[in-house]
Each structure stands twice: as structure tokens, then as C-alpha cells.
């Protein structure tokens, strides 16, 4: 294992400490409770928004704490959902009197831990709502699985509902918009290499020099199938086809697109994928109104990418364009 780390057990704490030092104007880090909180939280009369999940997906979620996005993030151990204590502490830290939204990616562990924290907050009389993201089309038979995973849409959703909350929306309104973003979004990912969990010390899976995994999540879980490595055009086609089928996008519709790197893939390759994506969508008369190309929801050092599309309407576009100022996403201020 080759990583820029000290003791594997200290990876999350030290990275959090580093984040706190790098962004003192935006966030504070509570190492005791292992949460990252927006500077000056709680914001009076604003719905508080928290999210969380295993570490290893940086910049998600800590990098999205700040103006116009999240009020707090709860990073678990690497690839392990956080514990209810963290979400409860974060809920306390961001509760400005207008209720708190929990954004939860659909993984058994995340769902259960957030659920337990919501039960505890509820018992204290705090108004809590939870929205679960489940955009990964790689998971097909949701009847026979834990359901579709929450992946790339989570980032876009956090931005959009963060903008809405900043504009003064109520908890119910924020929840409704969050559900809408999730319903309008789908993702699919692939891996060229495995990632290595620091505490495990070796790659989670092995891929041959001419193989790739299609339909992977963001935790080094094996995907739906292993196939022969092909080129960027083919891979983009493979990822986008089930997304388009599932979203049933029609001629003339416009989307928000995320071409996301898994952590070990350089930007030059992601732009090549974006180029292929544009070509394919253009052929179907679907226009990309807004886009992100880069590492936004990663799987440690995995090489690979995922594509996310969210069908846009005026409301979504408005809050996507609203100002945001976080360590990883910033515009308009």
C-alpha cells in the first residue's frame, strides 16, 4: 500500500484536522464528535442540512460544508457509515429553529445509522426530515437488493437544496425539492483499478491489465460485471445508456451533467469522457445546460469514473446557479 498517510487509524482525524486548517474561514471541525460544521452555525431561521457517510469520498461531504450547501458533515471511518452520535451532534450544531434535513445515501449502514440518530433527535423534539438518495442505475433489481445506491446525485442535490434552504425555504419545501432532484437524477460508474482501504492495506479487488469493472459503487464493491477494457467512447456509451433509459429523457430536454473521477483518474481523462458524453447526448438532442467535470465523489485512490445526469427545470437550475462557497465548490461569491 502506497499512501501519503501516517497511522491508518488516524487517517480520518488527520485529514479532518488538515481541512480545518486549510479552510478556517468556512468550517470548524469538532474532532471530539468527528463532525465538520459550517462556520457560524447554526444559522438562525434556516433549515439546517447535514449529510454524512464513510470517509474516502473526498471532497464529499466535508468539502461541501459552507454557504449555500451543507451546514455539517459527518465523516465515518473509511467506507464505513458514521455512527448516530455524530449525526446527533451535527443536528444539534446546525439546528437554527427551522428543522434539520438529513441527506442519506442509500446504503444499509448509512440508512440505519441515520435512522437511529433521527429517532434520538426526534425524542428530543427536534424537527427532523430525511431524504435518501438512490440514483445508481447499476443496481437493477431493487426488489432483490438493498435498493439503488446513492452516488453522484448526492453532490448535486446537496448543492441545489442547499441553495434553496439559504433562500429561506421551509423544511417541507426543502424535502420536496430534495426528493425531486433525486427522482430526476441517475448515475452509473466504472473502475479501471481497485482502491485500497488504508486499514486493510491491500486492494479490495484485483483487476487484470485488460479488465474493468462496470457498475461499481464508491466503496470498492465489485460491480455488476467485469469486462474487457475498452476505450473512453465505449465506456461512456456503456455508462450513459442505462441512465438514459431509466430517466427517459426526451428530445430537447436539458440536463445537469457530472463527469466524476474516482480519485485516481486525472482530469485530462475526465475531459475526454465529457467530450464523448456531449457527442452522445447531442445525437439525442439532449443539451447539457450545466456541468461539473472533476473529482467530486471518489473512492479513495480508485481509477475510474462515473456519470450523473439530472433532468433540469427552471427551479433546479435556479438553485444550482445560486451562490455557493464551500471548500470544494464555489461560485457567485
Amino acid at each position, binding site marked *: 500500500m502506497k499512501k501519503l498517510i501516517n497511522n491508518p487509524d488516524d487517517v480520518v482525524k488527520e485529514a479532518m484536522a488538515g481541512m480545518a486548517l486549510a479552510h478556517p474561514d468556512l468550517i470548524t471541525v469538532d474532532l471530539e464528535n468527528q463532525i465538520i460544521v459550517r462556520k457560524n452555525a447554526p444559522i438562525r431561521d434556516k433549515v439546517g442540512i447535514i449529510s454524512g457517510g464513510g470517509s474516502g469520498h473526498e471532497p464529499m461531504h466535508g468539502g461541501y460544508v459552507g454557504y449555500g450547501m451543507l451546514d455539517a458533515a459527518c465523516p465515518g471511518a473509511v467506507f464505513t457509515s458514521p455512527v448516530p452520535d455524530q449525526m446527533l451532534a451535527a443536528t444539534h450544531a446546525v439546528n437554527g429553529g427551522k428543522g434539520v434535513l438529513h441527506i442519506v445515501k442509500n446504503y444499509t449502514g448509512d440508512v440505519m445509522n441515520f435512522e437511529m440518530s433521527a429517532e434520538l433527535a426526534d425524542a428530543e423534539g427536534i424537527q427532523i426530515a430525511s431524504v435518501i438518495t438512490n440514483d445508481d442505475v447499476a443496481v437493477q433489481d431493487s426488489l432483490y437488493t438493498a435498493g439503488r445506491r446513492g452516488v453522484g446525485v448526492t453532490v448535486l442535490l446537496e448543492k441545489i437544496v442547499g441553495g434553496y434552504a439559504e433562500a429561506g425555504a421551509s423544511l417541507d419545501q426543502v424535502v420536496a425539492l430534495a426528493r425531486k432532484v433525486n427522482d430526476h437524477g441517475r448515475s452509473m460508474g466504472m473502475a479501471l483499478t481497485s482502491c485500497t482501504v488504508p486499514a486493510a492495506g491491500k486492494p479490495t479487488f484485483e483487476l487484470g491489465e485488460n479488465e474493468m469493472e462496470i457498475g461499481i459503487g464508491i466503496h470498492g*464493491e465489485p460491480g455488476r460485471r467485469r469486462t474487457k477494457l475498452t476505450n473512453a467512447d465505449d465506456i461512456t456509451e456503456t455508462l450513459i445508456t442505462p441512465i438514459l433509459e431509466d430517466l427517459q429523457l426526451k428530445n430537447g430536454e436539458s440536463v445537469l451533467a457530472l463527469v466524476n473521477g474516482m480519485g485516481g483518474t486525472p482530469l485530462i481523462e475526465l475531459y475526454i469522457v465529457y467530450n464523448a458524453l456531449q457527442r452522445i447526448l447531442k445525437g439525442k438532442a439532449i443539451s447539457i445546460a450545466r456541468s461539473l467535470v472533476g473529482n467530486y465523489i471518489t473512492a479513495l485512490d480508485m481509477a475510474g469514473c462515473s456519470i450523473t445526469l439530472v433532468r433540469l427545470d427552471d427551479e433546479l437550475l435556479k438553485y444550482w446557479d445560486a451562490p455557493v462557497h464551500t471548500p470544494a465548490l464555489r461560485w457567485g461569491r
Partner: protein
Amino acid sequence: MPVTTGDIRDWIQRSGQVLHENNAYLTQLDSAIGDADHGINMDRGFQAVNKKLAGMEEADISTLLKTTGTTLVSTVGGASGPLYGTAFLRAGVATAGKQTLESADLITLFEAALEGVKARGKAQTGEKTMLDALAPAIEAAKQAQAAQASLAQIVQAMVAGAEVGTKATIEMTATKGRASYLGERSVGHQDPGATSCWLLLQALADSIKQA
């Protein structure tokens, strides 16, 4: 001989050792069909539990089990944290006021744990999870009890039941938890959570034998 408070404490301590020793093994199993952290998670959780219990010399059985449960909830995370946490919490509730546990108490304890896991995880047996070790273990315990077995024999039967159940997960297609994403590809791999459950029961048997 009934199970004493000391046996329960020994069990939790021994579990910590066993899970520590099997950290890499459980993580390896989780690499194949999950995200390569189950051993790390369980080891971290039981280390925290044993640190916590070390300061609680006077605790009774119920308190030991409940503290184990809350500590696992607070330190494990992932799927196994809430599941094992709930299991131990429910076990603690089911043993409230008991100074020792007879065979029937022990079965009650594990049935409460089983119900807790089912409720929290919304799962059934046959879905390739820890339930597939725990449920057959309890089944075996009941049969042994019906056959007038001793407490020690009942616990041995649980271990045997958990072993069979764990091995049976190899052929199952996962439909719950992270392994479910793999669909058919999950077949051929032993479930890490079932394996840790079997190890925990093995530790209990050793604690009782020891006593």
C-alpha cells in the same frame, strides 16, 4: 451450571480478542462481496466496548449487554454497528434483573437479539446476512433444550448451528446489504457478518467451557 455475570464479561472480552485476531480474515471476506471493512469495524467496536467495560466493575449481566450494545452503536458504524448494537441492547433488556442465566434465559436472550436484528435490518433468513448464522444457532439451541441437553451442550449446539448456517451462506445469493449489489456474483462467498456472528458464539462457548 448457569451463566454468571463473570461468564458474560469473559465472553465480551474474549469476543474482542477473537475479533481482533480475525480482523484481517473478516475484512478479506468483506472484500469479496462488500467494502473490505467488516473486520476493521468489529475490531474497533469491541476494543471500545472492552475499554468501556473495564471501568464498570459492578455492572450486572443486563448492564454489560446494554453497554456493549450502545458502545457498538456509537463506535462501529456501517451496517454491523446498528445491527449488533441493537442485538446486544435487546439482549440486555431481555436479561434485566437476572443475576445468572439458565438455558431458557439464554435462549430468550438470543431470541430478543434475533428480533432486534430483524427489525433494524428489515431482513429475513436466507438473504445471506448475519441472520443466517444467528437463526439456525437459536434453532439448534431449542432442539438441544428439548432433548434435555445441558447448558454447555446447548451453547455447543448453537456454535454448530451457526457454523452450518455460515457455511450455507456461501451458496446464497445476497438480497440484503452491500453484497446484494453483486446479484449472482455474490454466490460462492461466505458472508462476513454471518462469520462474525459464528465467531461470537464460539467465544461464548469457550467462555462457558472455561468457567
